[in-house]
């Protein structure tokens, strides 16, 4: 067939598809952003202590330090306060060494230097195996709750690595990646506790 005509057909089809998607993207974008904000608030609540009177999802600072929890990427930290006193904060952590891809986590620490909770916010781990890190799929991630965050813990490793954390069965790499990311994040928290609460808050977007 005539290559010019073939090209025209392909270009027209591609443009129609692009138009359809652009229109749909414009109509769904706000809704998706709202959903994501709502989900963020719900997840923050799950990893924060109950006693605070500000809006942690708005009290947000960005940290970008090479030895920080996320490497060079700027990651948000959310602060909860009761009056002017620190009530707890939530660090975003990235486990770059997940089985499939990087895993993003929220690590919540109370003002008493204890881990309130850890939740996965984005991952692409293997369904049925590594996706057990998702609190909706298994209770594994709840094992972090209540752990001491104020001092380095030598037992902070999987049992097979000499520590005292169980692993998800069939997902050693995933478990180890999450565990190490949380440990690095808490190390960072210990060194920068006061500074994290004092960082100026930045607006969304």
């Amino acid at each position, binding site marked *: 067939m005539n290559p010019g005509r073939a090209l025209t057909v392909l270009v027209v089809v591609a443009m129609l598809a692009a138009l359809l*998607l652009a229109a*749909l993207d414009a109509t*769904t974008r706000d*809704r*998706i952003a709202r*959903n994501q904000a709502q989900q963020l608030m719900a997840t923050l609540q799950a990893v924060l202590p109950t006693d605070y009177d500000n809006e942690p999802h708005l009290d947000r600072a960005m940290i970008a330090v090479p030895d920080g929890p996320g490497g060079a990427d700027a990651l948000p930290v959310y602060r909860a306060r009761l009056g002017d006193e620190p009530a707890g904060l939530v660090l975003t952590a990235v486990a770059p060494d997940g089985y499939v891809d990087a895993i993003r986590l929220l690590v919540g620490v109370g003002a008493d230097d204890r881990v309130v909770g850890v939740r996965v916010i984005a991952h692409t781990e293997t*369904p049925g195996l590594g996706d057990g890190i998702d609190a909706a799929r298994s209770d594994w991630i709840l094992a972090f709750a209540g752990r001491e965050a104020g001092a380095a813990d030598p037992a902070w490793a999987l049992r097979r690595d000499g520590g005292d954390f169980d692993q998800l069965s069939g997902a050693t790499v995933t478990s180890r990646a999450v565990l190490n990311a949380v440990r690095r994040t808490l190390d960072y928290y210990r060194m920068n506790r006061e500074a994290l609460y004092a960082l100026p808050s930045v607006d969304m977007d």
Partner: protein
Amino acid sequence: MNTTNGNATFLSGLWQTNPGLVQLLGLCPLLAVTTTLINGLGLGLATIAVLCASNTLVAATRHWIHPNLRLPVYVLLIAGFVSAVDLVAHAWFFDLHGSLGIFIPLIVTNCVILGRAEAFASRRPVPAALADGLGHGLGFAAVLVVLGALREAIGRGTLFAGAGMLFGDTGAALEFRVLPEGVSLPLAGLAPGAFIGLAALVAGRNLLAKRRAARPGNRAKREQ
């Protein structure tokens, strides 16, 4: 299966040429997402939507698309529809979208869809192609739902877990236990359970088809 009769076309997708149980197409999502009934239903609905839309459009444009251009054009169309379904699910079924994860975008690679476009819709009028898409979509979705229900009931002892993701707050009340707490066989929810469950369904379908063909007085039709 050479009939253009819409009704027969539709029924064929449900039984004789069921994509999940007979053609054994699209097994990757079929095995992976059917950990619960609702997951299966969600992906089933998404697949029906994409299959109907792609079949219809492929049939409608069959006179303008040169055979040499078929594949790139179909892939473009299907990818466009899948992205659209992905956006809609992300906006209106946020939790379900999170729960199905990568498998909504992966509908693009589901061979059922390209297979129906290529084998059927590209040479039939629109109504027949739509009936074909609906039949095969429903047939595929039915397998997803039945396998999901089986694995959820045996593996977790519940049914309709996570129904709130699809039906809102009223749906959340749909969940109920079929087995007492603590009595379940987690294997059913894992990968081996998916294979065993699918094998059981395929065997069951073959058994029924054989019985039906053997029944005296039945139009001794070639049932596979």
